[in-house]
Every structure is written in C-alpha cells, then in structure tokens.
C-alpha cells in the first residue's frame, strides 16, 4: 500500500482495558475491554478517518496514538522505534512529532490564561528567547487565521471556533508531523465546522501534516478522509479507501451506520443502504458478545457468528471487513 518510508506512525495489536471497581473496597469487579487488537498505519500526508458509535473506543485509541495513555498490549511504532517499549511517549522527540487536538475547545484551554500565555508553553520548551517567542505566537495565530491581537484575550472572550483555532495553534507550536484530532468539530456549529475543516485541509498541504481524524460524522468523513476505518467494540471491523467504504460498505455495521446518517437531499438519501435499519445499541465493553461482537445487532447473523470471531477478509484495493458473510447483502 505505502512504502515503509512513507509511514509516519503505526500501531500493532493495541489492547487497552480498564478495571471496573464496583465494591466499596475498590476491588476489581471486572474489566472493560476497550481496545481488542487494533492495528493501523498512518502514511505521510494522509488523513486517516476513524468512525464508530460512542463507546467503541475511538478516543481511547486516539489517546494511545498521542502518547497520553500506555496500552496494555501491542506496540506503537514511530520511525522504527517502539514508543512505549522505549519509553519515548513523554520525550520531547515524541511530543515534537505527534500532537493532539481535543473535542471540546472550552475545556482544552485554561480559562485563566490568555491565548498568548497558552501558546507560550510549548515555545518555552524549545528554549526560544522572549522576543522570538512573541514573534512565534503571532506566527502561530496567523497560521490558524486569527488576528495577533487575540494573544491578549482570555478563552471566555472567544467563540467556540476561535477557541478551537487556538487549540490547533498550540498543537502546531512544536512543528509536529502528526495531529490526532478527536472530534475536533463536534462541539461547533456546522458553519464553523466548515471553516475549521477547510483550515485543517489547508494546513495539511501547507505543512505536510498527517491526521488521524476521529469523528462520528460519516458525511464529514466521506469528504475529508483518505482512508476510513470503522470501529466497533474495540476493533476496526472495516477499513479501506474512503470512496470504497462509502460506495461498497461490506460490513453490516458500516451499512447500519450509513443508513442512520441524516441527509439534506434525496440524492444523498439514495446512497444509503436501505436494507439495514439501525437497531439496538452498542453493548458495554464489560460484556462483549461472543464470536463476532456485532452479531446481536446484525440483521444477517448466522449461527457461526456467535461462535467464532470472523477473520479480516480482504475485499481488494486495501479494503477489508471482519465479517463471516463473504459477500454481505449489498445496497438496495
């Protein structure tokens, strides 16, 4: 697919679980198995989309990719080095390569610090002199299309879109190559979302960035991601080039998600798989169904589905789906 030199970040078999402490004594009552073997490769300059219902483990995966949390199993590879194995996740090298932008810009900016003060934090790490720092703050604000006077303003005086721009500028301050974007626009109005996404696209080509874009908005994904992966209960159940995922979704879960997308025109309506109606809800990761974890909600479930986990079946052109149906019933 992509030559090794094109890879900026890759993950192999990532696992993550959280202990459920229910009793008063705090004893562990069980485990939430949130990631169950997730592998992915992020190529230079690519937008890697990650979709799925809430609770499917997208943010957990994002935090591991950004070096925030250690996984319980699997590896994260950066330039041939095992990030967690070599304890690089808190190194300046890693922070200068991978940065994260959070979902809610109101909580990711300190209310008691001005934009300038917030942007100065990463610059202090670079040991820039004072004058250089102010210049760089202005440069960063310019990069995200904010007037330099915003350096003196507190977050409470900024709109949601402006806050997200500041958060983006902070993430760019260390000149990273990869941004992990966890639902960067889901707290914003659609007119503001459009502007932020256009900005992200411009920055990608201008600075040669790669993105992992986490979003549950499939229409957005369709328009910006180069490749799309669909997560369900801690596994990537289908992945491939975006047009293929949307035009020929192979996994019933992908079809269900697509069927639920609210659309604006009859043309778009016609693109939705008609045979799969959204039913049920994602189960808790503490009780993962046996076999194929999607089988309780799957309209095409067969006996084998509750017994055996399906293998990843290649569908050509880099698309694969983890489903027992060799060729699931397609679209209407």
């Amino acid at each position: 697919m992509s030559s090794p030199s094109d890879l900026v970040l890759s993950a192999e078999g990532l696992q993550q679980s959280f202990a459920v402490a229910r009793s008063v004594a705090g004893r562990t009552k069980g485990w939430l198995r949130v990631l169950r073997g997730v592998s992915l490769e992020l190529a230079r300059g690519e937008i890697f989309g990650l979709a799925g219902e809430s609770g499917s483990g997208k943010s957990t995966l994002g935090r591991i990719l950004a070096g925030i949390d250690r996984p319980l199993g699997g590896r994260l590879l950066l330039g041939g080095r095992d990030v967690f194995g070599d304890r690089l996740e808190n190194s300046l090298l890693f922070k200068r390569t991978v940065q994260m932008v959070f979902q809610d810009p109101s909580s990711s900016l300190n209310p008691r610090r001005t934009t300038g003060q917030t942007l100065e934090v990463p610059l202090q790490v670079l040991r820039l002199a004072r004058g250089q720092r102010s210049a760089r703050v202005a440069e960063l604000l310019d990069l995200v299309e904010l007037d330099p006077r915003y350096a003196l303003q507190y977050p409470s005086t900024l709109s949601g879109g402006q806050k997200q721009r500041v958060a983006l500028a902070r993430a760019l301050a260390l000149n990273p190559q990869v941004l992990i974007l966890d639902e960067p626009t889901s707290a914003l109005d659609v007119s503001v979302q459009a502007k932020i996404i256009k900005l992200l696209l411009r920055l990608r080509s201008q600075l040669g960035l790669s993105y992992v874009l986490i979003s549950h908005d499939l229409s957005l994904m369709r328009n910006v991601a180069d490749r799309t992966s669909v997560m369900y209960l801690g596994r990537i159940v289908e992945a491939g080039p975006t047009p293929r995922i949307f035009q020929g979704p192979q996994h019933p879960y992908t079809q269900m998600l697509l069927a639920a997308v609210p659309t604006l025109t009859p043309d778009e309506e016609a693109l939705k798989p008609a045979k799969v109606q959204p039913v049920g809800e994602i189960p808790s990761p503490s009780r993962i169904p046996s076999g194929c974890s999607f089988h309780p909600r799957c309209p095409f479930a067969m006996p084998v589905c509750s017994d055996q986990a399906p293998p990843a079946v290649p569908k050509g052109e880099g698309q694969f789906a983890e489903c027992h149906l060799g060729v699931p019933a397609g679209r209407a």
Partner: protein
Amino acid sequence: MAEALLELEGLRVEFRGPRGISRVLDGVSLRVAAGERVAVVGETGCGKSLTVLAILGLLPQGARFRGRLRLLGREVPAAEWGRSKRPLPGVAMVFQQPMSSLNPVFTVGDQLRAVARTLPHLRALPAPRLRARLLEVLSAVQLADGDRILRSYPFQLSGGMRQRILIALALLKEPKLLIADEPGTALDVTLQAEILGLLDHLVRTQQLALLHITHNLGVARATTDRVYVMYAGSVVEEAAAEQLFSSPLHPYTAGLMRSVPRLDGSGFGEGIDGTLPSYLEVDLGCRFRQRCTFRDSRCEEKPELSSPSPERRVACHHWELVRAAAALEERV
C-alpha cells in the same frame, strides 16, 4: 392549513445586565398545527431554547418578555406562560440528557409515579390503574417488558432506553404538543435515528404535534413538515421542509446548507464568516448583514418577513437574488 394548536406571536425576551440590556428575542412568531411536525434550526445562541422556555413558562430569572401566546385558539394570559413556572396544559417537554435527567437512586417506576402524582388527571388514580397506565406509556415508547423496566434503576438501562423513558415521562402528561430540545452535543447517529423514528411513530399513533429544536439540518429534514430557521433572535425563514432544503431563500439558510458536508462526497462550502452579533447593541438593520455576501445599503433597514409564496416566509431584502444565485450554482 390545519387548526392551529399553538401560536406564538411577536415574542420578545430581554435581559438586564451589567453592560446594559441584551435584547435577545426580537419578535419571534411561530405556529404549530395539530399533529404537525415542526423544526426550529439555527446556530448556537440564536435563541431557540429561550423560545421554547418561554412557551413552557421556564424563562430564566431576570428575563423580561412580551408577546402573545394562543393555545388551541385560547389566548394564554401573560401570567400563565413566560415565567409562570407552571406547565401549560397539553404541552410537554422531552429532556434529552438521558444521563442527568433521571435520578440514579430511584427506580424508573418510582420516578414515573412521582410525576404522575403531580398531574391532576392521574393523581387520584388507584395504584393498579396507575400501574396499567404506566405500562401503557412504556409500550407507547416501544419498551417491551414494562414490568422489569418499572423495577429497574436508570443505571441498569442503556442510553436509548433511558431516552425512551424520558419520552414516556412526557407522554404521561397526555400532551397535544411534544417539545424536544436537542442537547448541544450530538447524539450518536444510530441512537438519534432510533429516537427520531420513535417520535415520528408517536406523532402518527398518538395524534401529537412535535416541535423539534435542533442544530442538525439533516435531522430537521428527516422528521418535520415545516422548518423555522432562526438567526440572532429572529425567525429569518419559514418553509415546508422539502421546499426549504431544495431552495433556501435566506442567505443564512443557504450558507448553513452549503456548510453541511454531503454524503455523496461532493464537498462542502466555506462556512459562514464571522459570529453572531452581540445582543447588547441596538441594531436597526438586518442582523445578518455583517456576515452576508448579498449585503448592500438596503440592509441597513431591518427586513420584514415577506411571503414569496403562500406557506413560505423569508426576512431578506434580497431573497430573489439568493434564489437566482442558487439556481445558477446548480447549473454549473
């Protein structure tokens, strides 16, 4: 048009604050016919919730309001809505924060009964009959196994079930009009599709009217007959859903629609520049003009709602131009 169930006319709401008076709602009028599904859309802070709160008598402390409200043809005196704190008969609100709107320490049955005891038509009902009624509303929201649900605590139920219970709570009031105000953060598409399906089912089976407040244009299109578009405290456009989405007449509506990414991958527009104007400033012109690409000298005068066709209203001096521009765009 069918008989009007609810008619709100010229609602003005203002707040006195340290920096002056903020005049938020500037004459909002809307109308819901019996059994009709109506949506109100618009970006954050445009006054959607305040409109609904006024109808429900729940305006915040310190709000001053003016306007007329008619329910089933009867004029409601100002003391019975706005800030009355008493619910209007026949109108019920569906809360959409399934996590926070239910009390975790009481069973669902206890909470339904507690609400029933506040309602005149259920207060005197003997226990077995009340129980029968509770099971009835649970089955109306398509929750099978009502007995078990009544005995469950909220944490034992999934998010979708909790949302259904909140709808059941509203149905206990035997409303003619259901008001659903969507929370700021988006629900999962699958859950959203499910709840929208349920609301639709209720409208048809229980002869309810629905007033749906949402950010999401797709949701508005999917579930409603008529749509009001609000901007900065006024209704700027009103039309049947299909009409509105096939040919928006207000530049704001058009801009919003261009901002929405399409499922067919045809991209999306640049969004809308700028932010909502401050409600503190008295503005005699069109409130959208600072962000409008059609702006000219006529916009210094506030446009009235005009009717380009029966059943359709728009508050813009340039709606013909907007329509022509959209048609041109279509052809290109």
